[in-house]
């Protein structure tokens, strides 16, 4: 061996494979403003569509007169529900088994609902024309409070469902009731509560918020009337599903529909569903034969396209005096707005909310969720979380703190006492899940030691004394969250979207010179797939990540997949990538054996090629093998080196983490300052630690925003309040706290590379930590529970109600 031969370590480093803090390749274009988003697309003859929207939350639409708008030069057409009826598209099916108006059909159910679609030569004309469309409304009584939705005299929101006592998820018990979803053992749980030493009960609300990606929802639809082909560019987190749904709705054969998701500026669940804007653009393009662009503005995005949360959870825990939990009972009142357009796997009307037993070994539990209609925008999407998991995590983490308070026990100790133990995995939860792996005690202990938990409690006690003596107006809170997520939907045995099983896919093609193009069924919206997918392939087949191109979002070229949301990309597509790569490696091994004239069983894999066991000098690199695969394959073997894999996961994955928040609150203004925030995540195998850190920072910032002020509010008339970034809290670098991140590694036993997914953990895990910190700060003044969001005035109000203002 001469000095120039790279060492094994050097060859490994050159791959930039799994575990490497590889810089994000997509950032080269993003940081130079060279991303290619939907609104960058300009097609010859392109028209613009824009909506006339309802100023009322609940009203009959008695007349739409578009004549003045049509007189404005440059206006091509104005579509209403009557026009859409001609193509059977006035209503569309939702992912949750309901139907939703595309354009107001006789009535409107929420403010800013789409009433008519104006198509014009440019955006300015379209907006001018909107002001000229005359709509007559007859106002109806408005239902805003979900707790009043099932009153006997509550207004009827959905006359289209009149007399329907069965919904998509079982019986409906009221005209505004959507479903009841029940899991667990009610009798056994009642018994646990009867026998309990201590019980707690609290209504814990998770307010309505919004994913608010920086890029709003948008699309360009282009129907080629000659070929009969439809191309739709759009902000789609799940482009293949959009293609299938478009085909089913339009009856255009699926091979003649090309759905393309270019660069996407954030999704967070907002871009999973199908919206009236997509349907209207497609219809408009079919009608006019010209491409039609629709771009939502910020207020439209915040006030109409899929909100998140609005879950009102009554949690009860039964426990023994020593703190051992013996039962959990949860009832949820779920406000779905005017239509049930929740984006969950079809059989899961409340998503995976039955993860609500969290990280604790509850011997028995019972859960019931009631979904109801109100005069608010539809949605209920998973805002950077797996389906309804963030609601569940908030519910149990808040409830455990309340139990600790009632028992007079330290909340960290209570958690430690009740954690599922390492030897119990795979663990079967009382509400039906099989947790794949975990080591909660180690993670919690590491977190407590790093943050100096016991000393912080001492400091807090001293501050409370000083506050009582009148020496300070500041109080201190310590918030703990130990969450378990359930991600990676999902196994076809229980997960599908409108009948499409939730597998995912990867296709890898090695070129003769040893570089690679690979395509997946997922779609990055900022997660960095172009970087991390290449790293998995690099490690698996020994080709440097820099020589691997990753492409997503074009349904003509990418294999069918269910897209990116619910932290499913790494658990599902990540597995497909590893398995496709392994198919390639297996074929490469046969080719190497032929090249080296040995049996393939005499070969072993070594970083970036195969070598003869016991004689490592005799080796073939993947680069050499790739050339041979095309040009000199073994006799009888097909040339080429590529593979496809479709992966149906055997189980979900269960990432977890221990988060601690230390907060100081000025009781006179209600302003809170995050002194420290420590986030320990266990997402199994870590593909790119730098990207993980970035994902965690982003998710924590969202969690901070949600817990501390981000809210979609309605007044009693159903007017949506503050749907702009002036009021909707989007923290800047100035407000965002400093984040401390840490990790443990407990690989998933059923995943080919042991990875669990991390993108959503920090949003799921941090909200309870912030909220628990606020609640903890006021505990010594007698507080049990303060509802979110914890913006300054509400914190001040809590301080006032607890007598802190003297």
């Amino acid at each position, binding site marked *: 061996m001469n000095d120039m031969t790279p060492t094994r370590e050097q060859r490994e480093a050159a791959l930039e494979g799994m575990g490497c803090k590889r810089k994000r390749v997509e950032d080269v274009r993003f940081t130079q403003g060279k991303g290619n988003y939907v609104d960058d697309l300009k097609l010859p003859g392109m028209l613009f569509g824009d909506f006339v929207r309802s100023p009322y939350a609940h009203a009959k639409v008695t007349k739409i007169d578009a004549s003045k708008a049509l007189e404005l030069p440059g206006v091509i057409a104005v579509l209403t529900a009557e026009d859409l009826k001609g193509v059977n598209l006035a209503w569309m099916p939702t992912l949750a088994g309901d139907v939703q108006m595309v354009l107001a059909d006789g009535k409107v159910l929420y403010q800013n609902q789409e009433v008519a679609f104006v198509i014009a030569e440019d955006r*300015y004309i379209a907006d*001018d024309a909107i002001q000229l469309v005359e709509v007559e409304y007859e106002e109806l009584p408005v239902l805003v409070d979900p707790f009043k939705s099932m009153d006997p005299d509550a207004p009827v929101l959905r006359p289209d469902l009149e007399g329907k006592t069965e919904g998509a998820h079982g019986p409906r018990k009221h005209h505004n009731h959507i479903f009841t979803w029940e899991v667990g053992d009610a009798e056994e749980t009642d018994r646990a509560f009867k026998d309990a030493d201590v019980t707690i009960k609290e209504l814990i609300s998770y307010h309505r918020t919004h994913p608010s990606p920086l890029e709003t929802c948008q699309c360009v639809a282009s129907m080629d009337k000659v070929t009969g082909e439809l191309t739709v560019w759009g902000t789609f987190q799940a482009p293949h599903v959009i293609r299938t749904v478009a085909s089913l709705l339009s009856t255009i054969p699926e091979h003649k529909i090309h759905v393309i998701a270019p660069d996407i500026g954030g999704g967070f669940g907002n871009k999973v569903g199908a919206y009236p804007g997509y349907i209207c653009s497609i219809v408009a393009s079919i009608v006019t034969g010209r491409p039609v662009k629709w771009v939502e503005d910020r207020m439209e995005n915040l006030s109409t396209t899929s909100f998140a949360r609005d879950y009102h959870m009554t949690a009860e825990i039964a426990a023994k005096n020593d703190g051992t939990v013996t039962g959990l009972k949860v009832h949820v009142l779920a406000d779905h707005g005017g239509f049930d357009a929740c984006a969950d796997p079809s059989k899961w009307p409340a998503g995976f909310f039955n993860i609500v037993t969290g990280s604790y070994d509850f011997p028995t539990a019972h859960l019931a969720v009631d979904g109801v209609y109100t005069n608010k925008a539809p949605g209920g999407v998973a805002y950077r979380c797996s389906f309804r998991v963030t609601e569940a995590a908030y519910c149990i983490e808040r409830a455990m703190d309340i139990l600790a308070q009632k028992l007079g026990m330290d909340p960290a100790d209570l958690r430690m006492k009740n954690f599922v133990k390492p030897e119990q995995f795979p663990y079967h939860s009382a509400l039906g899940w099989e947790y794949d792996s975990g080591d909660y005690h180690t993670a919690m202990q590491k977190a407590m030691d790093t943050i100096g938990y016991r000393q912080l409690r001492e400091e807090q006690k001293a501050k409370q004394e000083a506050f009582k003596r009148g020496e300070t107006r500041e109080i201190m809170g310590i918030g703990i969250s130990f969450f378990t997520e359930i991600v990676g939907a999902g196994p076809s045995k229980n997960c599908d979207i409108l009948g499409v099983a939730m597998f995912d896919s990867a296709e890898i093609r090695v070129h003769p010179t040893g570089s690679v193009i690979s395509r997946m069924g997922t779609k990055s919206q900022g997660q960095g797939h172009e970087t991390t997918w290449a790293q998995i392939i690099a490690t698996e087949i020994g080709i440097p990540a820099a020589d691997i191109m990753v492409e997503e979002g074009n349904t003509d070229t990418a294999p069918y997949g269910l897209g990116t949301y619910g932290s499913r990309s790494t658990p599902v597509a990540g597995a497909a990538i590893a398995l496709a790569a392994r198919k390639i490696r297996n074929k490469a091994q046969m080719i190497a054996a032929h090249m080296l004239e040995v049996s393939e069983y005499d070969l072993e894999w070594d970083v970036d090629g195969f070598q003869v066991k016991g004689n490592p000098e005799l080796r073939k690199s993947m680069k050499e093998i790739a050339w041979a695969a095309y040009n000199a394959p073994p006799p009888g073997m097909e040339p080429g080196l590529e593979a496809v894999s479709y992966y149906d996961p055997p189980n979900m994955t269960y990432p977890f983490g221990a988060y601690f928040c230390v907060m100081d609150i000025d009781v006179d203004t209600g302003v809170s300052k995050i002194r420290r925030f420590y986030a320990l995540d266990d997402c199994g195998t870590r593909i790119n630690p730098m990207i993980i850190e970035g994902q965690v920072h982003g998710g924590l910032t969202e969690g901070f925003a949600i817990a501390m002020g981000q809210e979609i509010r309605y007044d009693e008339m159903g007017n949506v309040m503050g749907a702009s970034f002036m009021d909707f809290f989007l923290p800047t670098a100035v407000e965002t706290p400093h984040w401390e991140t840490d990790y443990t590694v407990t690989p998933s036993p059923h995943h080919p590379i042991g990875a669990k997914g991390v993108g959503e953990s920090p949003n799921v895990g941090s909200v309870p930590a912030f909220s628990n910190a606020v609640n903890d700060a006021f505990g010594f003044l007698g507080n049990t529970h303060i509802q979110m969001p914890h913006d300054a005035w509400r914190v001040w*109000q809590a301080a006032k109600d607890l007598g802190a203002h003297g």
Partner: protein
Amino acid sequence: MIPGEFTYHRPSTVAEAVAILASHGDEARPLAGGHSIIPMMKLRMAAPEHLIDLSGVADLKGIREEGGAIVIGAMTTQHELIASDLLASKLPIIRETSLLIADPQIRYLGTIGGNVANGDPGNDMPALMQCLNASYKVVGPNGEREIAARDFYEAAYFTALAPEELVTAVVIPVPPAGHGFAYEKLKRKVGDYATAAAAVVLTMSGGSVSSCSVALTNVGDTPLYAAEACDILTGSTLDADTVNRAVAAAEAITRPASDGRGPAEYRTKMAGVMLRRALARAAERANG
């Protein structure tokens, strides 16, 4: 979020600008930094048919000292206010306040003239101008007049300015050297208008207040000059009882809206807290 149609004008003198304003009456609006009017136009809450861009009018720029007063041209940006050495030495409260307005990008464009003429109770400069007893130089078809900031604001977006008049400059009497000052603003985040804010300028001698001026931002439909609070504070040693009475007097004149920043009761109380804190900081800074 797309404005209606309008005609754009770019005059180079005050006279020209006033002439265009006068010929279009209510249909015309001056355009300064555009950071209040353009968002309103995008929301179609304002739909002027003529926009008169003042950025080509050289006479409206600059900060200078004239007699005992500082004169600031209407088109001086908030960034220029922050960067001015003259203001830093004579009127440091302007810098302190400007730094609490919006963010650097907006401050590069937003002007003092636009901020005081806008008439939005959320703007920070109007209360500060009332606190400093400033007046605005105004030019219209009938010539120039001066209006005291304390008399300028009538209701939200209604001011003493006629539609065909321009604010050309802000004139601020220089407070005595050694004066204490503070602008305390509570806001939800960078770029937010005040939940409540208080401006205080005072002079002390021998441990008691010899003069005092207080004004409040965004707790009514105009900026609020707190005359009674000033009277209570003047002559006092800022003892707890006097401060409590002054705060109560200031809170009593507030009429805040309930909005995303909080209910009216909260905003009134925050005006009080901001005043309390501004007084403490101003007193600490005052010499004498």
